[in-house]
């Protein structure tokens, strides 16, 4: 008897299709970076990935439960990998990788890896935000197009609709089924960390995809925490998760033709300027300044203040930082001023 899809609005067949692949990527996560590299080069590993997608689609169409679906896909892919590994003309590197993937994939289970990643991130984010944390649930949806116009291996995106419901925020993971490969899976922790750092606990009047605070400064902070949390979340996935987070960051920063891309670029720059100022004016050590920026951004995100006020604060972080702000920052850094009062100083300068 098949279990119902755990995500509202996602067709059971599509869910089983995504789950089967995610389960195999999860099982093979120690080899995920190499898997991606070989896929990028084309050839037999890319064929193996395409074959996995085909097997997942076939098996997901059957009316069976999640665990059975995963088992069926693992078995079918195993057979194809055995056939491939029997080829005489296979290069040594590909042979080694496919053999390792085959062994690892056999450990895949029907447990939901999306929920597991999300649970780990929300546990850490709720500790970071304390009382300001808003409970969050995960939704998974299928999108028919790649989220960006220029195709990249990250056919996945996440969003947190605003305003949140009384019961809490819902983080929606949108996956383009045709593009859901190992790189997209490895990028999930970063995407979900962004949502949980930037949006789930946000206290503001509205949401805006061009906010230099929410999509820029806080996104930089999300990368800081993802770097810290990757091992805690999943030691085996951590290398691939960190690598693909950085690739995704570079890729998204190049999209300055979109409001999000501009916000990201300028907001990241603002964070770096603030770091440099904490180091030069407050005598902070490099890693301390990174965490001080993160601490300040989290405090500002907790404030029940208009988003335009927070965006205004970011607009003041051009180098060199202006004197009224530096005085206030110095007072905040030495615990003489709260984040609310710091924001007041910034807005008064408007």
């Amino acid at each position, binding site marked *: 008897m098949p279990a119902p899809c755990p995500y509202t609005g996602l067709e059971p067949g599509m869910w089983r299709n995504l789950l089967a692949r995610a389960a195999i990527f999860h099982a093979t996560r120690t080899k995920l970076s190499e898997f991606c590299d070989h896929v990028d080069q084309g050839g037999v590993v890319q064929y193996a990935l395409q074959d996995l997608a085909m097997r997942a689609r076939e098996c997901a169409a059957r009316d069976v439960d999640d665990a059975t679906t995963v088992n069926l896909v693992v078995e079918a892919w195993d057979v194809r990998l055995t056939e491939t590994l029997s080829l005489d003309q296979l290069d040594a590197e590909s042979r080694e990788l496919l053999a390792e993937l085959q062994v690892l994939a056999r450990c895949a289970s029907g447990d939901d890896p999306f929920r597991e990643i999300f649970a780990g991130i929300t546990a850490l984010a709720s500790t970071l935000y304390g009382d300001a944390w808003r409970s969050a649930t995960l939704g998974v949806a299928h999108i028919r197009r790649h989220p960006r116009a220029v195709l990249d291996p990250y056919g996945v995106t996440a969003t947190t609709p605003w305003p949140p419901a009384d019961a809490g925020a819902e983080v929606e993971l949108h996956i383009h089924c045709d593009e859901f490969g190992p790189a997209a899976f490895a990028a999930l922790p970063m995407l979900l960390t962004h949502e949980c750092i930037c949006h789930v606990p946000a206290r503001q009047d509205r949401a805006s995809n061009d906010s230099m605070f929410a999509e820029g400064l806080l996104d930089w902070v999300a990368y800081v925490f993802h770097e*810290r949390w990757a091992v*805690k979340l999943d030691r085996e996935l951590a290398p691939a998760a960190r690598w693909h987070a950085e690739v995704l960051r570079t890729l998204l920063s190049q999209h*300055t033709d979109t409001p999000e891309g501009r916000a990201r670029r*300028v907001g990241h720059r603002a964070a770096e300027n603030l770091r440099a100022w904490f180091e030069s004016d407050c005598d*902070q050590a490099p890693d301390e300044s*990174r965490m001080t920026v993160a*601490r300040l951004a989290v405090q500002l995100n907790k404030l029940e203040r208009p988003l335009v006020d927070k*965006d*205004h604060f970011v607009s003041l972080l051009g180098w060199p930082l202006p004197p009224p702000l530096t005085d206030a920052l110095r007072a905040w850094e030495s615990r003489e001023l709260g984040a609310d009062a710091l924001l007041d100083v910034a*807005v008064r300068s408007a």
Partner: protein
Amino acid sequence: MTADQVLAAAAALREFSLEEIAVFCDEQPPVIADILASAGPAVERVEQDHEGEPGEQHWRVADLAGLRSALRRGTTRDPAGPAPDETAGARLEYAEETLVGCEAEPSAERRRVMVATAVNHLRQVLATTLPSRPPWWMVELAGDELEHELRQHPDPAIAARLQLNVAVARLAEGNVAGIPIPTSELIERATHFHGTIPLLGGQRLQGLARGFIDLATAQLAPTAAPAVDRLVVAVARRRLRECDLDAAMQRLGPLLRTLDTVPDRIPCQDLYQPLGQLPDGSDRAIVYADLLQILPPDLRWQPQSEPLPGALVEIVAELAASDYLSRCARTLEADLAHSPFYSDSALIGQVAHVLQELAQRDAGMHAQCDTTRSKLLALAKATVWPAPAPRS
């Protein structure tokens, strides 16, 4: 590296529980506790005498300077500050979109903050174009140095874009602070921008140019005047927005001149102003333009000029037509005199309603009136910059 990361987190947090510092580190609490313990006396454990979970470990930094000194050992400080900023393009686009988007913000306070945000980003872009390289917050948008540099800019398209940005930013700042720019300067700018429209490619820059037009006319919009006068200017401003950009920029100068030269800036206190009679018995008058739309087709009139383009028309009309227009104008004025509405949009909506009632009195005018009403309601819905805030 792990120890440095934990101690750096300790320096950033100063006083913390083990659970709190753990989210700033990639190590688990027992390892973190060992690292903190080994960093004494710069870091010390605090005996718990305040709220917290039982058994929760609390720590504090006792010697911040010493801790930082240890953290910096082996590192060199870069005195040059951050790497060169390569965000000018993104900042400029953001400033432009914010300046365009401000007009739709209903809250005056938020609009003020949005304008200041856009101006900050614009100043950061402009600071890099000035030879003196001033700190960005010192860039004077109305300064001679900036004006001179933008005129000398080797790329005419960039020069036109930056000049437009500066003009809109100054007007927007003036709008939210209640500090107007001299009308003569606006007229000169309008003439200049009319010549640079071909250089302003793309929807965003065209929107910004429309923002200039809108802000310039907002500066001369009456706020405390009778409803009739506010109506006439509100309609004229919105009709100018409906024109294509080239025509709108061309008409802006004359419109500003008209609004600025009429005594007390009030263009008209009546919706029908007789100017006298011609030898052939026909009447000359200035009439509110929308009244002409509900005039029965058998009544004759000729346009002569547009004292306030889009809102007031000077006509020569046969006696019956002028009588009809005069009566409708009085009805509309009477209705507006008791208008409970403060906003321009509501006033225009009120006019649409009265014109419909007037047309219903005349058989055969329904279709014509429906069109006029629809157009007026569309005008009412258009978003425009409000008149400048009272000077604080």
